[in-house]
Every structure is written in C-alpha cells, then in structure tokens.
C-alpha cells in the first residue's frame, strides 16, 4: 500500500475542493437565480449552468460511471427546472435541491442502464491531471481503475467529500440519507480503497 500511495504524490496548485466549493459556500446567489427563474427570466438558466454544471456532472459521472449518462442527468436537471419554474421560488436552498434532483436522476439512469449492456466503467477514466503535470495522467487512469471497483454509492460519497469538500451532514442532506449513512459509506469506501491499494502490485 505504501508503495502505491507514494506513486500518487500530492502536487501543489491542483484543482482542489477549495476551488470547487468557492461558488458553493454562499446560498444567496443561488436563491437569486432561482427567484429569477421563478419570475420568468429564462436567461438565468445559462448563469445557473455555469455555476452548477461541473458539480452536477461530476456527481452524476461518479454515480453512473458513464459520460453519456452524466450528460443526460445534467440535461434532465435543467429540464426539471424549466418545467417547475413556478415553484422554484419556494425552494429553501437551491444547492441541495439541485444535488438531490441530480442524485435521483443518476440513480434512475443507473437502474435503467442495468437493463442494457454497457461498457465497463474502467474504460472511461474520469480523473484528469493538471495541465502543468501531464505525468500524472497515468496515475489518474490507475486511480480511476481503483475507484471503479467501489460501489456507485461509495464513489458518490467520496466524490462529494473529497472533491466538493462537503461534510457528511451536507452529503446526507443532498442524497436524502442520514448523516451516519453518508459517513458509513465514506468509511467503507476508504476501507475498500485501502484493501485495493494493498493488493495492487
């Protein structure tokens, strides 16, 4: 395990949870955008897309493991917003609303996909190295191969905790599960990764 973890050294200046969460900390811009949508301003959809698409796409990608499905989820979230625009003003916290809708849609997509053949998840490496450190691309591929071994639920929680910097309580709130369940999934995911790292030659 030690040898393997040394193969993934920390690189400074990477895109981390801090950058990803910068737009997430304050709920007010999100509420303002939802209020605009509820008032009938369609152009707010574009600004909302710029704010939320990365997070929604990442969540759906880590849950479904398929870029096409993740793109479908993002589109569906925005379709839902367009359909339910009159009720958006009543949403207390748009951030949790968006994540919950994306999560439910991703679960539905995963269920549907189980009924049809799909490519193995490892075939789509979904971890990118920074442009300044292209040598890490191989590491990204290897890391994704390990992550792909986890269950979708564990992947989802690890994504939200590690990349989005969300607490277990916040994860539980957005996925609609108790905090304990979110923490438990994260812990089990870590244990599985530790095991996989230990068995990696």
């Amino acid at each position, binding site marked *: 395990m030690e040898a393997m973890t*040394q193969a993934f050294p920390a690189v400074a200046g990477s895109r981390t949870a801090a950058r990803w969460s910068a737009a997430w900390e304050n709920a007010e811009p999100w509420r303002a955008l939802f209020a605009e949508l509820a008032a009938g301003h369609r152009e707010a959809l574009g600004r909302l897309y710029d704010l939320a698409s990365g997070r929604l796409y990442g969540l759906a990608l*880590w849950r479904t493991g398929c870029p096409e499905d993740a*793109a479908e989820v993002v589109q569906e979230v925005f379709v839902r917003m*367009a359909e339910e625009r009159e009720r958006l003003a009543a949403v207390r916290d748009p951030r949790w609303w968006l994540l919950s809708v994306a999560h439910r849609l991703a679960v539905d997509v995963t269920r549907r996909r189980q009924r049809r053949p799909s490519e193995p998840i490892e075939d789509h490496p979904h971890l*990118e190295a920074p442009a300044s*450190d292209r040598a890490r691309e191989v590491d990204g591929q290897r890391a994704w191969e390990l992550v792909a071994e986890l269950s979708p639920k564990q992947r989802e929680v690890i994504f939200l905790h590690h990349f989005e910097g969300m607490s277990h309580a916040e994860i539980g709130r957005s996925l609609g599960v108790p905090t304990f369940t979110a923490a438990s999934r994260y812990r089990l995911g*870590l244990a599985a990764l530790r095991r996989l790292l230990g068995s990696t030659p």
Partner: protein
Amino acid sequence: MSEPRDPVTPLLSSLAPSEPPASLRARTLSRAARVWEQPAPPDRWRQVRESRPLRLAWAAAVVALIVANLTLPSWSGSPAGRALPPEVAASAAQDRELQELVELPRLRETLVAIETVRPAGVPDRADSTDLDKEKST
C-alpha cells in the same frame, strides 16, 4: 492504536474529475428552452379539482360512505337490547366454555416453591403411602 491513513487524499490529490463536455452547455440550454416555451403543466391537485369526472367520483364516494354509515348496523361491541338468534347464542355459550377450559389459571411461583421445598422429616407422597401400608399391616 493509530487511525489508519486516509488512502483517498494521496490517491486523488492533484487529480480532478472530468469537466462536462463543452457541447453539453448548448444542448442542455436548448432542451431546457424548448420545455420553457411550452405551457407549464398544471398542478396535480388543480387537475383533480378541475376534472369533472374526478369530482363526480369523489362526491359519489362521499355519499356512499354516508349512506353506508347510516344504514348498515354497527357490529362493534355487544348487541345490547337485541335478542340473539338461538343458534348464535348456543355457539356463543360453547365458546365461553371453551375459553374457560383454555384459560386455566397460571401456576404461581410461590405455589411451586411450596410444593417443591418440603420441610425436613415430611415424607413425599410415595413415602406416605408406604407408611400407610405399614400402619394397616
């Protein structure tokens, strides 16, 4: 015992999840715009309220419930003031006897203790019958 090291941080450090493809923005917004142009689907409760067949069905159900409540006899509790048919009364009496047979009084712990803990010198039933035999001979 120390906490095992978090394997995620070194594994995923400096890596980032894939960004959505550039074409997704246009696709998403155009699809949402198409839905936006359509009239918003009415609220489900409003649909129920505004649907004539559903309103009629609801009214019919309420009327049926009220009529049933007024006309059907109440079966809860004992039918006080009402004579039971003889066959029903006979079966009820049988049931009571059966219930008494089934519901035997429970053995109490204190009684069990009295039976089993016998004072010294007091013979049990087998011994006492032997003594009785000796006396008779």
